[in-house]
């Protein structure tokens, strides 16, 4: 049986093109999760706070050399900056604003701590890690849409 290959290949291409167009047409109707972007930004910050805690803990144990800690802190700082920008750009309905403000404050604390770590290469002084992480976790949970 002769299979017209160019035609079949074009058909696959057409199907794929439809798949590319579909999200644009459907996104408006389906992305009705109004706190979604905010929740994602808070989730990123929560993960970054946990990563900072692990980085500090390994640095304190002497597993990581100071130069490495400085460089990791530099990269993490950039990631937190991006998450903070995402947080600032995310639409926040009135009910979610307190959580957004709490997350913004946590982001500032994270950046301060990362700046200290970037300069010294070793953890200095107490880190308000546990309460900060708990705050972000709480905000993230509060922003979950109802099941």
């Amino acid at each position, binding site marked *: 049986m002769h299979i017209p*290959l*160019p035609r079949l290949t074009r058909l696959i291409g057409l199907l794929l093109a439809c798949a590319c167009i579909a*999200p644009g047409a*459907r996104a408006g109707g389906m992305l009705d999760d109004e706190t979604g972007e905010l929740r994602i930004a808070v*989730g990123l910050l929560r993960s970054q706070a946990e990563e900072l805690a*692990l*980085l500090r803990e390994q640095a304190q144990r002497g597993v*990581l050399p100071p130069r490495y800690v400085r*460089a990791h802190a*530099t990269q993490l700082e950039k990631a937190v900056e991006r998450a903070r920008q995402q947080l600032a750009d995310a639409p926040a309905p009135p009910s979610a604003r307190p959580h957004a403000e709490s997350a913004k404050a946590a982001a500032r604390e994270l950046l301060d701590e990362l700046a200290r770590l970037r300069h010294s290469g070793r953890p200095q002084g107490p880190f308000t890690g546990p309460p900060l992480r708990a705050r972000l976790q709480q905000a993230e949970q509060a922003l979950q849409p109802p099941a």
Partner: protein
Amino acid sequence: MGQAAEVFLGILTAMGGFVEIGELVFTLTAGTRFGYQLLWVCVLGTVGIMAYCEMAGRVAAVRGRPVFSLVRERAGFAAGGVTLVASLVVSLLTCAAEIGGIALLWQLVSDGPYRFFVLLAFVAFAVIVWVLPFQWIERVYGLGGLMMIVFAVTLIKIGPDWGEVAQGLVPRAAPSSGSARDTLLYAYVAVALMSSIMLPYETYFYASGGIEDDWKPKDVTLNRVVVLVGFALGALLAMALIGLGADFFAPHRIDPQAPATAALAASDALGRAGLALALGGMFFAFGGAAIETCLSGAYNLAQFAGWPWGKHLPQRATPRFTLAWIVLLLLAALLVVTGIDPVQVVEYSIVASVVVLPLSYFPLLMVAKDRRIMGRHANGWLSNALGWFYLVLVTLAALAALPLFFLTHQGQG
């Protein structure tokens, strides 16, 4: 070199070159978000890439024809041209992500400026590809990538729950926590994970590599053994990364999105030696993939256009091919030097890859199963069955990829 040594080296190279930055990100993400529940996708994707790489290698060995020469011949100029452009975009994005990943690794080791390392990576890889013969590039980076085994050792030291591992091998359509959002995210991560394992450049590069290595019909068995054993071992490494996501990062509530984060698992369990091996393994894995993607783009372009190509020929005999890989490498470096997050580039490259897969696989399957072209080396019933199954699967995945990407906020939740 004896045949046995060649097979052994080929297997190790295939294993070491299996994981690159996209796979690292998505395997860890899969494990962190869904535990071992997506382990089966790893198996599914690995069998798929085995089936199509084996076909591509066999066609290269028997007919001396690389993938894009077949794409143009079988799909026609217009449809083939679309496939070519799409594959070039995917190669460029993947190469950019790998270069960004390498710059991040160098920054970690030296605490220097990221952008400088991006440009340094461009210069270093341009010199390496220019100077080193094909086999050296393949083996140095493939064997160096074996240092990634440190992640498997880390997982074993943590001690996974083998019962959960076994359950993860059973396919399931939805995650155990059943909200609609979780199901969409589960579907997106599954598609992305499969795409990261079945990256199209791997097939193009593998077939072109067979021709670079001057494979003949007698090498069909070597091709089969290398693909089956090497990729199976590589898949174990990918599965170990899923395990690390599940057993290390999820309990720490960390979504690992960067090489530095991944390295924390190895340093936590194995100290500084673990850290050094993790960074070294990632460097060789990303470096090998950066070189493979830029060469793969140049191979595709040259094969489609009918230009002389190959590292086995002197540069003066392949001017347009040489210019193509240099330009591709340069564009990739320029893309990440803008400051764009390499991990975000990974997301885009993986989604774009899955869309390209059916367009590349279809012509390859048509040739590999054609007895008039392949003679006694044409696909048997198993290769045909796997070929059609995966063609349908990747087409469905390609159709679903973009809607899922948007519906899950670019895979973030």
